[in-house]
């Protein structure tokens, strides 16, 4: 019994510490938001009156349905983009597979709001494409008009979620699944409908519900496109213009959280008990066939068209950052470095802040992620699953909601030495970023830990190493790759986070890059430097993504060596 206590004491204390952190910075703020939503603003009594008010106000009704419509339509458009791409790569011997893989990564290295303004200049009413269309054919297409713009920008950005999940599902279908159906008499459309489609469905639904969640919660894109009649912008505007006591922001937050949970639940249901990875060693994937020449031309045409669409925010942003004046013309009038010079002069604080905040947040995430992974998978602590559950729960909390929660919860908590409310101290931004990105880092660390065979640890213990020495000498070194990957993922996504940050930045000098881009983009004159700052963000995220990709690849090699050890035993 004594021994048992000795072994469990360290992890127990650690778990308690993490638990306190998560409760204070995740559970309490969110609970506060929910509580306020159900509280009468005057008397403080519990009531549904705020929700009644919400649904009786036409602006909120409109916002609610707009958000639903935009999220639904984005899922549809993203599916139209992703499904052919996934099908081409898995069904045909198609040389464009590399192109398609690139397509899957490129959008993710830039947050959607950064490219939104550039998209206006390319696809807007007087944008390049419509100017050409009206010159040549005498008509224009309202790509970016009103909600269309949000839908276009969001689906171009988020379709990779569907592409990646659906491709994985299709790749996991064993050829024998199709062959056995053919053997029993099925072919063509029936074979697809009865076997391929149902087997790929869970992957598709998982991807689609993720797209729905992301679009439904997104704040930056509608704000940048000046679309205010949606839920997330309304929540932000109510809090920032009317004030922290206005209940509508809280009601909207509750609705956002409810829909997030709903999407996650759908995705969970889709994947639950359906580990359809049927592929056997060596024989994986659907039957592939060669393309006829005209089919190949068609495939390439589709892929290149989609590639152009996907790259357009980046291209537009680059043009904007180098262009002198770009208005009512297909391309900018001239090119200059002035915006970059301007940016370096005025925006160096943004860049510095971003590197500091994202770096600190990623560090916290990796430390927490490793600790939680170890506690959950290697100890027998009571309630350890709840720790994991709590940390992963951050996925369901939109940035706006976390931001509002922090404002409300920590506004009265004065930090002693700096003598400021915690809600307006820069450290709170770091904490918000860390909480929001913790699930990504935790997932990476968990995957890393699961690759380390318990037997490797047992061998160390057998040779006299204590638990903590084993962790330090065996587990952590073997997990380095995964931890680094987790760090970079957290860093890259935190560097361009806007929705929580925008609520928490209290002084210009504390603002990070994403906030800076948003600020610049507010005025026509700021667009050039804003775009230059956007390109800088893309570079930071792009380099970080590349590094993490390399690290993961190297890690896989290492891990497969580790797995081999486990297998031979």
């Amino acid at each position, binding site marked *: 019994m004594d021994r048992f206590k000795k072994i469990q004491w360290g992890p127990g204390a650690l778990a308690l510490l993490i638990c306190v952190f998560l409760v204070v910075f995740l559970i309490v703020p969110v609970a506060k938001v929910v509580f306020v939503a159900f509280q009468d603003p005057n008397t403080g009594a519990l009531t549904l009156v705020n929700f009644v008010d919400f649904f009786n106000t036409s602006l909120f009704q409109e916002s609610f349905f707009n958000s639903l419509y935009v999220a639904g339509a984005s899922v549809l458009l993203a599916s139209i983009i992703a499904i052919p791409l996934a099908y081409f790569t898995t069904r045909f011997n198609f040389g464009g597979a590399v192109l398609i893989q690139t397509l899957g990564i490129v959008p993710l290295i830039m947050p959607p709001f950064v490219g939104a303004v550039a998209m206006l200049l390319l696809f807007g009413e007087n944008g390049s494409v419509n100017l050409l269309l009206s010159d040549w054919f005498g008509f224009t297409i309202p790509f970016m008009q009103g909600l269309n713009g949000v839908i276009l920008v969001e689906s171009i950005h988020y379709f990779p979620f569907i592409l990646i999940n659906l491709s994985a599902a299709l790749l996991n279908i064993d050829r*024998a699944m199709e062959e056995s159906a053919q*053997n029993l008499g099925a072919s063509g459309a029936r074979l697809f409908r009865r076997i391929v489609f149902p087997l790929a469905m869970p992957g598709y639904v998982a991807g689609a519900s993720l797209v729905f969640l992301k679009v439904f919660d997104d704040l930056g894109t509608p704000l940048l496109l000046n679309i205010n009649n949606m839920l997330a912008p309304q929540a932000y505007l109510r809090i920032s213009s009317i004030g922290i006591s206005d209940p509508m922001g809280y009601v909207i937050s509750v609705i956002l959280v409810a829909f997030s949970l709903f999407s996650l639940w759908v995705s969970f249901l889709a994947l639950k008990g359906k580990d359809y990875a049927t592929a056997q060693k060596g024989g994986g994937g659907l039957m592939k066939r060669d393309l006829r020449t005209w089919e190949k031309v068609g495939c390439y045409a589709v892929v290149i068209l989609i590639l152009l669409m996907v790259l357009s925010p980046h291209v537009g942003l680059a043009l904007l950052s180098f262009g002198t004046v770009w208005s009512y013309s297909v391309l900018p009038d001239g090119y200059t470095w002035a915006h970059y010079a301007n940016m370096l002069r005025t925006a160096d604080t943004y860049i510095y802040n971003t590197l500091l905040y994202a770096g600190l947040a990623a560090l916290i995430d990796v430390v927490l992620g490793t600790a939680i992974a170890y506690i959950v998978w290697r100890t027998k602590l009571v309630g350890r699953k709840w720790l994991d559950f709590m940390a992963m729960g951050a996925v369901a909390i939109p940035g706006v909601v976390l931001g509002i929660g922090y404002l409300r919860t920590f506004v009265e908590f004065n930090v002693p030495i700096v003598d400021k409310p915690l809600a307006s101290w820069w450290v709170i931004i770091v904490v918000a970023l860390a909480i929001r990105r913790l699930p990504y880092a935790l997932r990476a660390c968990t995957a890393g830990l699961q690759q380390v065979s318990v037997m490797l640890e047992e061998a160390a213990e057998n040779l006299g190493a204590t638990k903590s020495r084993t962790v330090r000498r065996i587990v952590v070194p073997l997990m380095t790759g995964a931890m680094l990957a987790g760090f970079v993922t957290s860093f890259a996504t935190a560097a361009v986070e806007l929705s929580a940050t925008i609520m928490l930045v209290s002084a210009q000098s504390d603002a990070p890059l994403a906030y800076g881009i948003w600020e610049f983009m507010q005025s026509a004159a700021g667009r050039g430097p804003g775009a230059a700052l956007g390109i800088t963000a893309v570079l930071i995220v792009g380099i970080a993504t590349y590094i993490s990709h390399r690290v993961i690849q190297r890690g896989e090699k290492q891990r497969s060596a580790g797995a081999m050890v486990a297998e031979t035993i």
Partner: protein
Amino acid sequence: MTESTTEASTEAGELHRVNHGHRAAGVSIRGVSLSFGTTEVLRDINLEIEPGEFFTFLGPSGSGKSTLLRAIAGFGPTPTGAIFIGDDEVTGVPPWRRDVGMVFQSYALWPHMTVRKNVAFGLEERKLPAREIDRRVDAVLDLVGLRELADRRPTQLSGGQQQRVALARTVVIEPRVLLLDEPLSNLDANLRVQMRRDILELQRKLRLTTIFVTHDQEEANTTSDRIAVLNDGIIQQVGSPMNLYDRPANRFVANFLGTANLIDGRVENEAGQFVFRTEDGTRIPLSGANLEIGAGAAMFRPQDLQVAAGDGGALAGKVEHREFLGNVIRYSVTVGSHNILVDDSHHAGGRIFSAGDHVVMDLDAGRIQVLPD
């Protein structure tokens, strides 16, 4: 399954009645060759498989046995030559119109369907009336003893149960030919023995022409009416299991089926008496009258020899090492430059030789076969 299959023999009859008698067809493979790029995987295969026969393709991995089976089912590139099922040529016919049932090595059960839906699939594709489908599915599930598990998903079943579902799903359509692609390789040893008996029983009951692919000689020997031994895409020999073991056509077959002693040398005629002479001068008398003179290999099995203590004689040597195999002790004896394996049957208190002991071996000339080079 043995218990349930004995009980279920009436269901087998039932399955037959609803299928209007059996439709077992023979398979005829004529001059079939196939290449993947420049690699020839099948070379001029000719085989006649009789209706109702349990026929096995036996060979090491890469021998082309699975490719040949898949070609019969219509999977993979179309080979040259012709394949007939019954009287119909099926070369180039897509898999879904061939009416041959295949059980996949991985079982390939669809995880999104229950056992019942999996088994009903082929009948649904054949557009049978729902009541007929229900009846036949129930009958076949009784036959394999899985009626109670009909509403489970494949992932909720054990390996052996999955195997039986795969088998039921295939035989329920009463295929003209049943193809089994290493169906036992994913089962553990005990279950494997049980399942092969069950498969054989089912095959006899339904009188299905069955082609079985395996690399395991014991599996092939215990189930098959006839075996075709394949190596490098070429059929080495076709025959009954005993025939292949007793009269192998070449070194490959001799080695692949059981353990063989193979000694290089020449058949010579010494004054009307045929002898086999090796390079180091060992001389082994042969029986038989019409042996061909020339180079070859003398083949005999370890149990064809008698071993005794002693020195001198045609087959005298020194024990190199011994292996205790339970029923026999296998000695490796050095004779000249050859190593000869000899099995001595073992019983408690029996005599045992040790490494270094000098022994003489007695070999009945009638047991020796000379294989051509």
